[in-house]
């Protein structure tokens, strides 16, 4: 097995009862590579992400992460293995502040013999938060503010800074800019470029053609639960119209005829 790949799926399949949401997905992601997943609504993009991150259990198929077959029973499992995910619906607790959200579920603690009543190490978490925000270039005026009081862009940046703070082996973002304005989108894209420079691999689920062509190396197109194209947009001559063709079903790439 080649160690070039950080993530590989073989014949990954998910059925919800009779609905075949994902069918035989073979997917490979190289170390340091940024890939976009595109496709129409209901094409299986989010389903694919949920199988990798352990939010749901796959019907069949294999997931090979960092050279080893994995069976994540839950998102925490995936996170501990090094997969950080920014979900479509923000997984943030509105009443908590920025450090609390960054460290939610993995708080730095003292006096661990107290079990569930072990003490929070607020100081260390605050310092790590500031370092994480600096790394991603995110500037939040007051990190002690509950994130309820923050704009959509700031909240998204908090969610993304969470992934960047923890030196993940793989970052997955599910439509991170879907609800954001122009400036906020630029912020998020800047963070993604920082990840690229740091050599951290990324899977980006996006509907935004301009964003995809700006940011990533490769585009994988899903259609009706199947992968129908794998496009090297950095080296090959691929246009947005081609991608739209694959998304809508006007075209199918050679080698993916099953999906037609």
């Amino acid at each position, binding site marked *: 097995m080649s160690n070039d790949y950080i993530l590989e799926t073989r014949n990954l399949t998910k059925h919800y009862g009779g609905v075949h949401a994902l069918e035989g997905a073979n997917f490979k992601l190289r170390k340091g590579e940024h890939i976009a997943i595109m496709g129409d609504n209901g094409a299986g993009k989010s389903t694919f992400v949920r199988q990798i991150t352990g939010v749901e259990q796959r019907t069949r198929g294999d997931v090979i992460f960092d050279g080893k077959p994995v069976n994540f029973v839950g998102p925490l499992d995936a996170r501990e293995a090094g997969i950080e995910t920014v979900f479509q*619906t923000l997984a943030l607790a509105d009443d908590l502040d920025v450090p609390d959200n960054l460290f*939610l579920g993995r708080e730095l603690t003292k006096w661990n013999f107290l079990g*569930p009543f072990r003490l929070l190490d607020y100081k260390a978490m605050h310092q790590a938060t500031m370092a994480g925000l600096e790394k991603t270039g995110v500037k939040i005026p*007051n990190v002690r*503010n509950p994130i309820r009081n923050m*704009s959509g862009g700031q909240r998204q940046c908090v969610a993304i800074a969470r992934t960047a703070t923890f030196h993940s082996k793989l970052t997955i973002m599910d439509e991170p800019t879907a609800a954001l304005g122009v400036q906020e989108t630029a*912020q998020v894209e800047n963070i993604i470029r920082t990840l690229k420079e740091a050599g951290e691999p990324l899977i980006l689920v996006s509907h935004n053609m301009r964003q995809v062509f700006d940011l990533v190396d490769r585009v994988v197109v899903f259609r009706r639960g199947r992968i129908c194209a794998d496009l090297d947009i950095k080296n090959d001559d691929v246009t947005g119209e081609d991608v739209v063709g694959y998304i809508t079903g006007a075209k199918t790439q050679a080698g993916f005829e099953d999906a037609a």
Partner: protein
Amino acid sequence: MVDKLSHGIGGLTYDKTKRAWPNEANVFIALILIILAFEALGQILPYMNGQSMLFDFNTSRDGTIMNIARIKIIILQVAIIGIIALGVTQVIISGGIDLSSGPLVGATAMIVMSFAQTELVNGQLNPKAVFGAWSFDLPVIVPIMVGLVFGAFIGGINGFLIAFTRIPPFIATLGMFLICRGISQWWTKGQPVSFPTDAFAAIGSGMMPVVWFAMLAILLGLIMKFTVYGKHTYAIGSNEDAARMSGINVRRHKILVYMIASMFAAFAAIVLSSKNLTAQAGMGQFYELYAIAMAVIGGVSLKGGRGSMIGTVLGAMVFGVIQSGFTFIKLDAFYQLMAMGAIIIGAVVLDQYRQQRATAG
């Protein structure tokens, strides 16, 4: 690239005027205003002859200008329900509700008192004995432990039902409400249980309920603020899905939250039965609602995620001052209940209005 970001995201800067004014400060101001209102009523109402509720300028009585006797009564009468309110507060913060605490007080009091009885009353065998000779004059730790274990057991069932069957907390604890009331009546077929040992009677004598209330408020306040337990409770109440996705064991945590709430209610039962020197099946009536009311007046959001022990303590004080104030201005008991209901509704309306404004800002 980073330079562009130095002015905050999208040019947003931190607006100090939008800084959240702590909720507890509002409750404290409300407390002061309510006290002033009763003082004013004491001056205005013709039949009050200019009496003051909390001040006593006749210094010959106890050497201070405060009416110490009334202040003591106000705090004492809310202390026991206040202990329940502390436990209920963390349930509400976690996004749930606990309706079973009042009947649990009754059931726990009956059970606990059965293990705290003394053998001889005025030289006669205890006329209210529940068990045989073995249960007389046990060390005081026995009834306390029995009570806390019973509370933990009931709370554990509540938590288990809510975490695993996914039925709404309202329904689960409503069922437990009836079950506990049934237990308290079944235990002695309705007979009161009386005559505790001296050691047990000492737990709730005098101002001891206030001491327990204060100690437990500080303990739970520190736990909520400085421990993982507290942080996860707020996180679950704030966004349960986010908490689950972040790897918090939400089910286990909920069971723990309801267990602790019921243990607080059980401890309140121990203090109450000790204070009254007797346990009756009907004890704790409406306590669950008063406890929820104290929390809500204290700014705990019924949607979960927000509130604090300081708020609940202040809410209990507001509750006590209003109750005592109504008696002070000689308002009939029927009107007291109606007015109390109106105040609770008003507190929630105000809180929601305030939250909407904060979110819109």
